[in-house]
């Protein structure tokens, strides 16, 4: 139980970084922390007591596996996180080229 709470604390640190920090690069790091915390939460969901890794081999006798379904989901989720991070970095690089700053307080041309 304590593990899930630690995961959620890590997730909230990531959300804090993403929303509150002023530098664009720190926001990207915050997104990364948030993604890691979510993936870790999912993998921890699959744990079954006193079980082995879900890999079969020819000469091993296994009694119980952990749940392999969350592990397949996390592969997909990591790829999605990679795509979003790559897009975010590309947009941040272009924003720097246009606005000359990474500070989100100065990137406010749309507000007027």
């Amino acid at each position: 139980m304590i593990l899930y709470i630690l995961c959620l604390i890590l997730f909230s640190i990531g959300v804090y970084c993403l929303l509150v920090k002023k530098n664009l690069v720190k926001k990207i790091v915050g997104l990364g922390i948030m993604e890691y915390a979510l993936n870790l939460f999912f993998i921890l969901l699959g744990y079954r007591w006193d079980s082995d890794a879900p890999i079969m081999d020819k000469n091993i006798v296994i009694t119980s596996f952990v749940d392999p379904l969350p592990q397949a989901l996390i592969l997909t989720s990591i790829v999605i996180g990679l795509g979003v991070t790559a897009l975010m970095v590309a947009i941040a690089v272009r924003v720097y080229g246009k606005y000359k700053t990474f500070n989100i307080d100065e990137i406010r041309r749309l507000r007027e």
Partner: protein
Amino acid sequence: MLPIFVIIPLGSAFLVPLVSRMRISLARVLSLCSGAALLFFSVKSIWWLEAGVRVYAVGGWRPPFGICMALDGFTVLMLVVVNIIGFASLLYSMDYARRYTSEGLYYTLFCLLLAGLNGVVISGDLFNLFVFLEITSIASYALVAFGVEAEELEAAFKYLVLGAVASALILLGIGMFLGAVSTLNMADISRSLPVVSPKLVLYGAALFIAGFSIKAGFVPFHAWLPDAHPSAPAPMSAMLSGVVIKTIGIYALLRVIFSIIGFNAVFSEIFIWMGILSMVIGVILAIGQWDFKRLLAYHSVSQVGYVIFGIGLGTPLGIIGGLFHLFNHSLFKSLLFLNAGSVEYATECRQLDKLDGLAEAMPVTSRTSLVASLSIAGIPPFCGFWSKLIIIIAAFQAHRYAGAVTCILVSIVTLASFLKVQKYAFIRKLKDAASGVKEVPLFMKIAMLLLALLCILVGLFFIPVLNTLIKPAAEALLAGKDYANLILGVPR
């Protein structure tokens, strides 16, 4: 038969980058053909429902062991909406996208967007819905930033941040349910949910409502919408405002709340209050706007509030009104955004007070814009009048008098706002005769005329539209947790 909605756009999305290096006209033809094929199949799917709910087992693995795709009434309505607006936007892009140097990239992203939207709607599995939702979101982030000007990049970054938070909240909600019932099939979760503790269901429902509301743009989660919708290229704005916020926001939210968790009085209150807040705040913020597309984006917030208010009433008439307004709003809001794009294409200006009367110079644009403005304001006999009338009658019947009065007042203010748009953009006289403003090219005109024709036809023949499209959708939603029995068969 069901995966055809995902096969066609995915195939064209993978083929277009190869083809566009040879000749760009091949890429245009390919994406237009895939859009037309999707429209044809989605209209045909209205008749597939006569045999009952259709389930397709991907890979031959039957549900609940494998991933399934399901087609019920609500899915058919969303398929028709997505593919009509998708085809109209593709037609419009044939001429609009010529201004971009990397046009092949535009069509790739657009086909991926269509693939993601269709996939969200036909998916029967919760994680599959999330994967297609992410495909849609990433394609829309990239398309908002497409013309790389300063404001567009800034708007795309803000949209990305809030969209990533929303996706993370949705994934956390999926994790809550996965940990509780160890399955991802929507019908199976719905069936196994009574054994889960109600607090966990409440946490999961709260996470889902927060995540999907950010994607749909309800108040107080609407902060990204007024920046992102104006900055996108015009056909992409039409897709965003007309289809994307409804599919990944409203459709997914209703699928989870009605079919998996079950609708009760708590959700009804939440939806009604979110609806009233969205209607009022959207229209108040829209009155003072002088930027054409930003005004339309604020009106999107307001009209989406109508939809969720109508559905939150919970009565059959309310749900029919809400879903009909969803259908109508996608038609006329996309038409309005295409009109704004045409005005910007011809005059390079989006500020209403700097535009002259364009009614003589651009006849097609101004007349279709008149049709769309009258529809959104709720003037008979256009389509918007009937859906707003049904919502107001349903609100009176459900004893929500404050909500009904709010609907009427917001509708009057919407009419005032669009009269301002019509006056400043189209009806004022041209100051200098030789301004050189010409009508837009052929495909853009065809797209706008198509949508305007649909607005008029749906307004005149609203009873057949209600019976064939909206009533099966409302019945599918009202069946609620019976969805599980329809997909998996009645338990023995």
